[in-house]
């Protein structure tokens, strides 16, 4: 498919979504759902304000820490269970089972352990991200042709050297898929955490907007988060495609 056609398609989708939004606005009324155009002008006014900036910074900070933890722990578990056959056979179904559980039910437990505030949000976000990163890393490492490992052994590489110079480069494209999915679910985890109990961050901003019936503000924040996630995903997908083509 040509690039221009793809761009036109995306524009058509956006146009259709805006149209649906406008229709919903006509049905729901001004107070419940503001129209697209006023929301866009509102967005221009809102983004430079200190209120938005501090909350966005709080969310970004929590997201960065959560991603760091999710990636480190997820890769650690993934490499371990991918390389060690028995651990993987025992552990993988447990990880799969945990992955499909509604983790939101565990948020109160996270809050009791880590407290309200940054560490609770970070822990909850990381909880979401660890599993897809670990699961895809396990799959990626298992898919490595055994001959790679045999040559590593022939060259007398230490376990660390084997991981750094053979396992990770060979598994990188698929591992990166894990990192991309991990990004999305970690963002979701952080936002859910903020929505339930937090005084800071865009998730809590949306909830306070809702209770104060400031729908313009609420929809604007939702749109910004939506766009942020979509753009981040597109960038990560782009990198991922390049990695896949390299191999």
């Amino acid at each position, binding site marked *: 498919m040509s690039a221009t056609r793809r761009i036109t398609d995306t524009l058509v*989708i956006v146009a259709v979504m805006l149209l649906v939004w406008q229709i919903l606005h006509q049905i729901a009324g001004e107070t419940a759902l503001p129209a697209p155009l006023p929301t866009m002008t509102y967005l221009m006014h809102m983004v430079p304000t200190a209120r938005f900036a501090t909350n966005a910074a709080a969310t970004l900070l929590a997201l960065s820490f959560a991603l760091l933890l999710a990636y480190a722990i997820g890769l650690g578990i993934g490499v371990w269970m991918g390389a060690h056959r028995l651990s993987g056979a025992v*552990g993988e179904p447990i990880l799969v089972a945990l992955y*499909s*559980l509604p983790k939101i039910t565990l948020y109160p*437990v996270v809050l009791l352990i880590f407290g309200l505030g940054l560490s609770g949000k970070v822990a909850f976000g990381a909880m979401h991200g660890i599993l897809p990163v670990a699961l895809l890393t396990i799959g990626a490492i298992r898919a490595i042709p055994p001959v790679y490992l045999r040559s590593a052994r022939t060259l007398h590489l230490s376990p660390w050297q084997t991981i750094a110079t053979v396992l990770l480069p060979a598994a990188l494209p698929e591992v990166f898929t894990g990192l991309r999915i991990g990004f*999305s679910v970690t963002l979701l985890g952080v936002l859910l955490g903020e929505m339930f109990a937090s005084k800071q961050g865009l998730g809590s901003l949306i909830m306070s907007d*809702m209770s104060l019936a400031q729908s313009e503000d609420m929809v604007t924040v939702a749109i910004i988060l939506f766009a942020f996630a*979509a753009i*981040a995903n*597109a960038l990560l997908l782009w990198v991922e495609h390049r990695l896949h083509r390299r191999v």
Partner: protein
Amino acid sequence: MTRVGLIRIVVIVALIGALELACRLGFINHRTIIPPSEMATALYSLLASGAINADIERTLGVILLVIALSIVFGFALGVVIHALPRVREALDPLFATYYAVPIFIFYPVLIAIFGLSPMPIVLIGVATAVVAMIIATLNGLDRVPRVLTKVARVHRLGPVTTAVTLQLPAAAPYLFTGVKLSVSYGFIAVIAAEFILSPAGLGRDIADAYADFNNRRMYALILFLLIIATIVNGLLHTLDMRWTERRAGGRP
């Protein structure tokens, strides 16, 4: 029971045992986590008292409704979109991005529109679950072997007979993947919505128990939901395995 399965059970039991021990010996504060055995007894007395029956009915009812709507609409939309290649091509970027954006942040917007009722919960649940079913349906229909449509033409089958006797069975494994994902997503979205803000339901109960520092009730409810989710996921997994085996066994 295989050796690996045995080790897995030992690992899980050991983890629960370690938690129990850490709580009993006072390494973990009682106000943070209560011992697993206490969670179980708390859940038993909570279920026996019947105090949460109404909420169980409500939450599971909403989840069932969400799953049913998602599967029916997802399948129907999938069939329609599959028949329109140009529309499908245009929708591709949307499908590729859909599960990467936090759809859930629109839940407060839905509450603002529809008020605090089951309606926003059902909508956010379907919005989360339906797209997985659409994508699975498209995948499944793509994988129907060409030869089947030719066979249908040779036997002069009508479109309905072709769909029911040939296309549907061929696409079934992919459709089942869609069902599995819809169930899992529907469950998660409904519980999350109830938890964040809802007039009633099990998710709301957990949030309330947390706010009241009622740890016994909170852990009992959490345990209950985790058990239900594990049973449902386990059942779907077993079904999946059995069907895969049967298909593999049928092959020469």
